[in-house]
């Protein structure tokens, strides 16, 4: 499973990176979202998969999965949400003001 997940994460990173390297702002944001999934799954994978029950003591499992990565991912998810929201708004504000969502037209060299 860890191997499969590692590959999946790699695929997410590859696709996300490719999207980020395109010109369209929206595709860039999509790329970051895909990478963020990759990141979260990677943290989980790196914590070790499937070794015990859910980290709920009420359920009387004998062993529990590592709860720490889960807590970390939870924090990361929320922070990523905050960032994405801001980035989205920033993008559309830029689009409205600059009249383009093409990053190749957002170089802003010299004359202005």
């Amino acid at each position: 499973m860890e191997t499969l997940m590692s590959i999946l994460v790699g695929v997410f990173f590859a696709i996300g990176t490719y999207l980020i390297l395109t010109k369209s702002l929206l595709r860039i944001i999509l790329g970051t979202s895909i990478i963020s999934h990759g990141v979260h799954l990677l943290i989980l994978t790196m914590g070790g998969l499937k070794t015990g029950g859910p980290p709920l003591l009420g359920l009387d499992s004998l062993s529990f999965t590592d709860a720490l990565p889960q807590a970390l991912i939870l924090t990361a998810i929320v922070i990523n949400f905050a960032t994405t929201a801001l980035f989205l708004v920033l993008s559309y504000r830029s689009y409205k003001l600059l009249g383009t969502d093409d990053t190749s037209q957002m170089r802003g060299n010299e004359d202005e």
Partner: protein
Amino acid sequence: MNNLIILPIIIPLIFGMFMVIFRRRIILHRALSILGLAGTISVAAMLITQIQSKGIQSLNIGGWAAPYGVTMVADMLAALLLITTSVVALFVLIYAFKSIGRDKEEHYFYPLFLFLISGVNGSFLTGDVFNLFVCFEVMLISSYALISLGGEKGQLRESIKYVLVNIIASFLFLIAIAYLYAVTGTLNMAHLSVRVAEVGQDGLMTAVAILFLLVFSLKAGLFLFFWLPGSYGSPPTAVAAIFAALLTKVGIYAIYRFFTLVFYHEPQVTHLIIGIMSAVTMVLGAIGAIAYMDIKKILTYNVVVGVGFILAGLASFTAEGMTGSIYYLIHDMVIKALIFLIGGVIIAIAGTSKLKDMSGLIQTHPYLGWMYFIAALSIAGIPPLSGFIGKVYITQGTFASEYYWLGAIGLFTSLMVLFSVMKIFMNSFWGETILSEEMEKGTTKGVMLPIVALVMLTIALGLGAEGLHDYVQIAVEGLMNPSLYIEAVLGGNGQ
């Protein structure tokens, strides 16, 4: 346990939150922000005396013993950065009073400013890798809001780049944490240090180290600085100044923390890489600084050079180098804020940042001109201003570790820096006066106080470098001797 450590994080936080609640009371905002920074300054001062007398201070948040909870650690380096941060921020804030504009004030400029400081302070104080990530995010998200504050075209355009690069950096930070956790099973920096030391820094660990270096380099603008000139050139002056002064420093601090506490076992690999990166940074930064006839660009590339120079001290991995770096770090925070503030005033007065469109300002603004002159000398490390002692010791450090090329590059780029900042002086202040006072687009009214204060500070830090010596020495001792940090966090049972 020392609850003081948390205050630099939560004082700005609480004060800022109250401002959000009482949104329209701008006077209250100003008062609270001054009060808040004054508070962090005093806390930092208290921490410094405590560290001096009792050693590194730590706080297990929630009472959970390290490495299980999150431990906040105040060593001398952190405390020194803390106090510098707050002092510089205070002056920039005062500058903002007169320059930022009512609409930005009403749109949470002051709270966001304080939140930024809170994040910066948190990054300095935390002893936990993941918490460092979170503190970075606090800082970053505030910076995202601040950098786009005002929503001008160029600003938004550069903000996009800034935000995107930092988002990716954050992802890389997270995967670095993931790999680190897989290999070491812990997040507490002191504990990491112990564990890494226990098994030695093998290849994989070095790869993890390089990944962290990559992440922090992005924040610090070490080698990966391409995002920096654009984004630091676009926001309002006060914001640009605080960015230039603080944000890269957090990355630098993190590199220091990691590569003296955790990944210090293979300096011939890691620290050499840092050295090469810092050399390239200095060279490219200096080249950028001399390339343009635009105040913003010149100043932002100077930020890049500073980063490279500070890290040259770490690359040397000698006590001298570290001493120099810490001095230079403090100097750089002060001077970058100062020169950005003055640059902002010049741009405001001339209504342009293009040097060829301005001339002879010294006729109408002699004080501003001389302040700039001193700042320009200081930024190049000309004695006896604040950059000097740092420059000498970083150079000495690089020589001592036989990285002569690094020291030489450092010194030579400081000449290029001088050339670049003097270019501004000669082109904007000297020459025929073409702008009468009535034609000026901006004014120096009300903004001279922080500028003068920072100039005084750079002079005082230069002439009074001795005053910091003991503190810097304690900081260096902490950096060169990880066991002090480990002892303070994990106590005797470090294993």
